[in-house]
């Protein structure tokens, strides 16, 4: 489903992100809304990222349409994770040399925001290495991730309401961790943590979901289940998946979905799975014969 509606409200109730987009002119914009007037949710142009002279991304240009599920593949070290780091604010002027433009919608310059602000305006991210709150129980992990007002003042008096419980139940079932709901997340196995982290993202109800190798460490069947899950989400939010598992990518992209191949910090090829698979450059540097 392609959304061409002009704006999507991110929050209808009491949500007030603590940021102020300065210098965003052109469109009249309600606070807390992403301007999707051109249909793009994420827009990267000429992105260059270097670490003390080492260029991890060299002039990357990429746009993701609103509601799209985009798969990104590419050799190890191509800059996929780095790209996600930049989008989510983990890598920024604070710890690297970054130039170019990274926009969410038409108006929000992600390079200017901090991590929590980026998360609040609706970008969720799963890390390549699963990170969960080890000393909190599984349900608490989900509860914390749940979309809500995240200021400390509210947290002081916040209650876990019925809606939240229902959300959690649903998510626990989706990720198949209902039996583990009450144990600390630190005691989960690698794959279980992987799923819990995806669950946390679902709770976050992001507009744009970034998944860095979500299927790593899962069995084939689980991988397919995950693919189904992501396919179900299609439409409710935009998704970017980085993966090396070609079957998984195929299952996600289907026949028409676009797959982007990154190599050496730039786009090497882009097109349907079929197209990309047969691209000699991709075969050479990535797929192998």
């Amino acid at each position, binding site marked *: 489903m392609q959304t061409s509606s002009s704006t999507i409200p991110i929050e209808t109730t009491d949500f007030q992100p603590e940021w102020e987009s300065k210098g965003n002119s052109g469109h009249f914009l309600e606070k807390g809304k992403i301007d999707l007037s051109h249909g793009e949710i994420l827009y990267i142009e000429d992105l260059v990222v270097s*670490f*003390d002279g080492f260029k991890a991304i060299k002039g990357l240009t990429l746009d993701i349409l609103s509601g799209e599920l985009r798969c990104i593949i590419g050799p190890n070290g191509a800059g996929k994770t780095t790209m996600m780091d930049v989008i989510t604010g*983990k890598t920024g002027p604070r*710890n690297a040399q970054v130039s170019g433009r990274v926009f969410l919608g038409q108006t929000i310059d992600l390079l200017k925001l901090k991590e929590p602000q980026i998360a609040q305006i609706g970008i969720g991210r799963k890390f390549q290495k699963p990170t969960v709150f080890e000393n909190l129980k599984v349900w608490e992990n989900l509860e914390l991730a749940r979309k809500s007002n995240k200021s400390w003042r509210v947290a002081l008096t916040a209650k876990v309401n019925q809606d939240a419980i229902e959300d959690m139940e649903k998510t626990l079932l989706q990720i198949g961790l209902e039996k583990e709901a009450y144990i600390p997340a630190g005691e989960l196995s690698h794959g279980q943590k992987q799923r819990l982290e995806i669950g946390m993202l679902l709770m976050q109800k992001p507009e744009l979901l970034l998944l860095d190798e979500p299927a790593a460490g899962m069995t084939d069947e689980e991988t397919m289940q995950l693919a189904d899950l992501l396919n179900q989400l299609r439409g409710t939010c935009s998704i970017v998946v980085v993966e090396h598992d070609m079957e998984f990518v195929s299952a996600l992209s289907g026949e028409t979905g676009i797959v982007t191949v990154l190599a050496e910090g730039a786009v090497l090829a882009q097109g349907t799975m079929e197209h990309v698979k047969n691209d000699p450059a991709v075969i050479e540097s990535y797929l192998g014969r």
Partner: protein
Amino acid sequence: MKFRVLNCLFTLVTSLVIGNTFAADLSQKDLVQIFGEEFAAKQSSINKIIKAPPEVAAEVLAALQDESLLSDGKVVVIKTNEGYLDPISHVIVKIDESSLETPNLNNILRSDIETAASQFKLLSKDPEIREQSLNSLMADMSGLNVAIVKSAKEKESNAGLITKFNELIAMLDYPSSNEEDKIKAIQTMGNSSSAKVQEFLKGLLKKNDAGEFIEPNNTLRVAIELALRDYQSRKSRSEIVSNIFTGLSLGSVLLLAAMGLAITYGLIGVINMAHGEFLMVGAYATFIIQSIFRAHFPGALEYYLVFAAPFSFMASAMLGLVLEYLVLRHLYGRPLETLLATFGVSLLMMQLVRVIFGAQNVEVANPSWMSGSFMPFQSIFPGLLIPYNRLIIFFFSIFVVFITWLVLNKTRMGLFVRAVTQNRTMASCVGVKTRQIDSYAFAFGAGIAGLGGCALSQIGNVGPDLGQTYIIDSFMVVVLGGVGQLAGTIIGAFGLGILSKFSEPFIGAVLTKIGVLVMIILFIQKRPQGMFALKGRSAEM
């Protein structure tokens, strides 16, 4: 032997002094007064000695200085190898040894004696003694015989000393010279690097009680002022250099104190609150070696440090091994708990030292090659003074850094240490003998702290609290430089040292200390991981 030397001196002095018309006779009665209680009497007695015939004066003054002038309250004698010599009649006398005492002199009398004796020492064979006497004559020119100085200069061959002679003579002659000579004298004095000479020049610019200039001649006053200004600019240059040196030297002390911590904490991850106590152990080890040398090899006492340094390394390292084995081994990966346990250990170690060595400080002396100072480049940097012990400690700290660097970066052990620090289990899983590495590494860090303690014993107290004095500074240095970064530790230490030394003259020691701490806090705001922060992904998670 001594007798003969004195005789020699006599002939010299006699031949030197042309006329001694105003030499007054000296009697035993005058001499006995020095042994009394009355200050005024003692002083007048010394004045009489100075005015006595030079040969007698020289002999008595020399005897006073090396404490061989004795008296039983009635007769005064000089102790020589041949027996007790009556200084007046110059014959050996018989006297009851047990009742002999030295006079009770105070600073003032002693310095009077020294100045007076200096005149006679200008001809000494030893250039150092000649220099010393010149210096003390410059400091106090009253009652100086110009003739003696001038004839001594004739015999002088050392260029440096000749300059000094010239300066002294310029000062002595100044009041009585004509304008032309005065200009020359001002030039001579202006080029001098001695503070005393400058003071003399400054004194010439002052007004006397009647409100007239002491130097009434205008041109001369201008010349003096120019000379002083030139001196001043050399002086301020010298002050900057000297500040840098004191800063570096403070830095090297900080570095020595912090180096061990940089290893145990920065690399092994043990927040070692007992680090200061390892310094202390090093210092006490030095003390022990010194005591052993004093008792058994007094001849080699000068070189006890050569043994003390490795011994203090070993002592601290052994203790480190024990601590590692008994306590820290069980705490790896729990850094904050190492903090608590080592805090307990530090209490234990301090109290143990108190029980064994007493709560009081113990004495560790500088060997003579580490005491005193020298004054390099006086013509460029007048007044610049470099103490030997500071200089040696500076080089020692560089040496310690070098050893550390060598061990950590050029040996397999260093590599393994770093691997173990970063991921203990994995290191074990690739075959690193973690237990062994842990002990070695900690012992090495402790040993380096011991070396630091050995050095610190040369400039400060050796007591049970020694460690406490340095622990905070050590942590500051390590944190400022960036934990785990040896280079950072070095820059941090020297940076702090120089910073402190440049601000101390302006805001005082107390505010400097506060200021430096606040600066560190602010600095860490800017660079939360220290100066040499770890970069890249590995630092983030």
